[in-house]
């Protein structure tokens, strides 16, 4: 039985370009390798020192003793730096054809024309394209690759780099700080409000390698920004590693929406770290779709330091066969009248495992704060897993806190109802799952909502035995 859900071609994500590069560092991780990366990247001394110190921290830290099994990840088999055969370009025409084709098929240049204010595109370890609308430049918005930021805005970078996410946060943050390459830097000046989003897309093509992009965003007082991050990689038989780091500073009265669709191939270890520090009357909203990857450990964190600061987290995780996706959200309420709203959904099938792991900490000084958490899991069969592991640490009485969790299997009655109207079993399941995911997908810009639905259809295609 062949299903027509939507026309979607897995090949879009699975296009493997030849593993061509200007430079690929030898596999493994040691001082010599970190120094070589630093040299290749023409780091200033202060950045080289950060890297070398981070390597020491990495060597001291242990792997996490909880969560998914990471034993298949062997750093000796991973090349941490792969420089593509091109420099940074500001015109797609200058991007080498095979790389440009990949981004074309992912729809990036088209989206740029239609609905984005600026685009960054990273291929393996380096950003190959970066561009922003001229009006934004005139308003003082900075949107560039991280390397340019290190060179041209060293004071801002020094003040913020690895300050929101400390190097010793966990082992993979230390790894990231030692070998980071690429990523985006955004500065939105006071009072500047961007109506249309900026998007950075990260593509990892090279097998047995890692991607360690660093995203640093500062939304200054009263400013507002929607930033979109997309990620994908073709499938290889050996493990790839993604350990990016995202540091977000949302100053007083500012607003940031950070949307992510991660669609890693199923050989990827996705050990990503994202945090935001939020000022007075400011707000950060996270919208996250986690698809693909073999293992994900991803827990975006909002630190609400200013009074009346707000955060919303809207996330969906989809785990299929041989996938263990451990995702969730962390929030720290550090000031009065702060509020957080969490809406998390997960879908697991074919033996896949989803875990919602979360932390809510409401400090002693965070009187009159509110936190509301809702997480819902849908399992499509009897062999899949879904767990919810919330940790709530509440140190003041004057709070409103609620946590609601619902775990269930897809309903045979619903499937029969839809089938009685002519939908095949596969279509019926896809429709139910799309409906389940709708509260999340409606938060995404329309093209990404479509992409997410396509990913759901893709995950369900051929899943009926």
């Amino acid at each position, binding site marked *: 039985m062949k299903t027509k859900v939507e026309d979607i071609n897995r090949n879009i994500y699975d296009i493997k370009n030849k593993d061509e590069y200007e430079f690929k560092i030898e596999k493994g991780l040691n001082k010599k390798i970190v120094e070589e990366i630093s040299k290749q990247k023409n780091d200033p001394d202060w950045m080289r020192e950060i890297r070398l110190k981070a390597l020491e921290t990495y060597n001291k830290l242990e792997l996490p003793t909880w969560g998914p099994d990471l034993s298949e990840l062997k750093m000796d088999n991973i090349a941490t730096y792969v420089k593509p055969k091109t420099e940074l370009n500001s015109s797609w025409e200058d991007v080498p054809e095979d790389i440009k084709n990949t981004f074309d098929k992912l729809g990036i240049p088209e989206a740029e024309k239609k609905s984005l204010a600026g685009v960054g595109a990273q291929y393996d370890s380096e950003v190959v394209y970066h561009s922003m609308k001229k009006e934004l430049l005139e308003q003082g918005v900075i949107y560039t690759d991280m390397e340019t930021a290190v060179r041209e805005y060293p004071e801002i970078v020094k003040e913020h780099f690895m300050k929101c996410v400390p190097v010793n946060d966990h082992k993979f943050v230390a790894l990231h700080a030692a070998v980071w390459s690429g990523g985006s830097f955004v500065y939105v000046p006071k009072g500047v409000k961007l109506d249309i989003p900026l998007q950075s897309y990260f593509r990892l093509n090279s097998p047995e390698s890692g991607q360690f992009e660093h995203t640093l965003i500062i939304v200054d007082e009263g400013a507002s920004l929607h930033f979109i991050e997309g990620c994908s990689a073709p499938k290889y038989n050996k493990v790839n590693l993604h350990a990016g780091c995202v540091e977000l500073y949302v100053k007083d009265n500012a607003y940031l929406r950070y949307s992510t669709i991660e669609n890693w191939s199923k050989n990827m270890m996705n050990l990503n770290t994202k945090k935001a520090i939020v000022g007075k009357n400011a707000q950060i909203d996270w919208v996250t779709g986690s698809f693909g990857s073999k293992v994900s450990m991803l827990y975006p964190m909002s630190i609400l330091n200013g009074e009346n600061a707000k955060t919303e987290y809207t996330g969906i995780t989809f785990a299929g066969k041989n996938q263990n996706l451990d995702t969730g959200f962390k929030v720290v309420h550090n000031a009065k009248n702060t509020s957080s709203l969490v809406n998390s959904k997960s879908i697991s099938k074919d033996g896949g495992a989803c875990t919602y792991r979360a932390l809510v900490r409401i400090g002693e000084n965070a009187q009159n704060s509110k936190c509301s958490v809702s997480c819902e899991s849908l399992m499509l069969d009897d062999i899949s897993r879904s767990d919810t592991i919330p940790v709530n640490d509440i140190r003041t009485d004057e709070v409103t806190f609620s946590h609601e969790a619902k775990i269930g299997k897809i309903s*045979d009655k619903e499937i029969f109802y*839809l089938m009685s109207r002519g939908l095949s079993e596969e279509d019926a399941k896809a429709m139910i799952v799309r409906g389940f995911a709708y509260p999340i997908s409606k938060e995404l810009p329309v093209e990404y909502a479509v992409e997410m639905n396509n990913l759901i259809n893709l995950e369900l295609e051929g899943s009926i035995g």
Partner: protein
Amino acid sequence: MAHGKSTLANVILNNPEYTKTKGTVEFQGENINDLKTDEIAKKGVFMSFQTPEEIPGISTMNFIKTAKNKVEGKPVKVFKFKQDVQNYMEELSMNPKLINRNLNVGFSGGEKKKNEILQMLVLNPKLAILDETDSGLDVDAVRTVSKGINMYKNEKNAVLIITHNMRILSELKVDYVHILVNGKVVKTGGAELVKEVEKEGFSKFKKEGTPNEN
């Protein structure tokens, strides 16, 4: 009341929750015993549910459109389709806002039943099996449902109304009445059987059934 009326409907539609131990289901001379539910629907068999499922996140309009595309095997012309749906909803005295709400989510019992009749009208099957469509409805709603059935019915199609309540039959032109007791049709007749039951109740037919046969 467990005499197998709903079982009959579910078995015809090959609901996987039911197992057929013997016998075959034929539709227009074709054995549809082993067809999947969606394939049976595409042959032109429709079932109205006693308790229609609520599906969050899917709009009623999108659902009905998808269903129509599936049973027709080709995409509908959207403008005309939407107009047809609107007209039917008006005939069924349905709140026009329901069509943009999630499928059956938060619908009252009556709204759900009318939504089933709406789907029957839109999908225009060859055989419509209405499983206790009248249960739990007030007099006005039963009348509206009957109106919907009369709009649908023509010489080329058939309706099988499953009910234990005579009220819905009063406004319909019934050709045959079958009385089902303990899984067996114990009596078949014309519309006059309705009168008989109204006067005397079911008890005399129950005696004709063979309870605890197995």
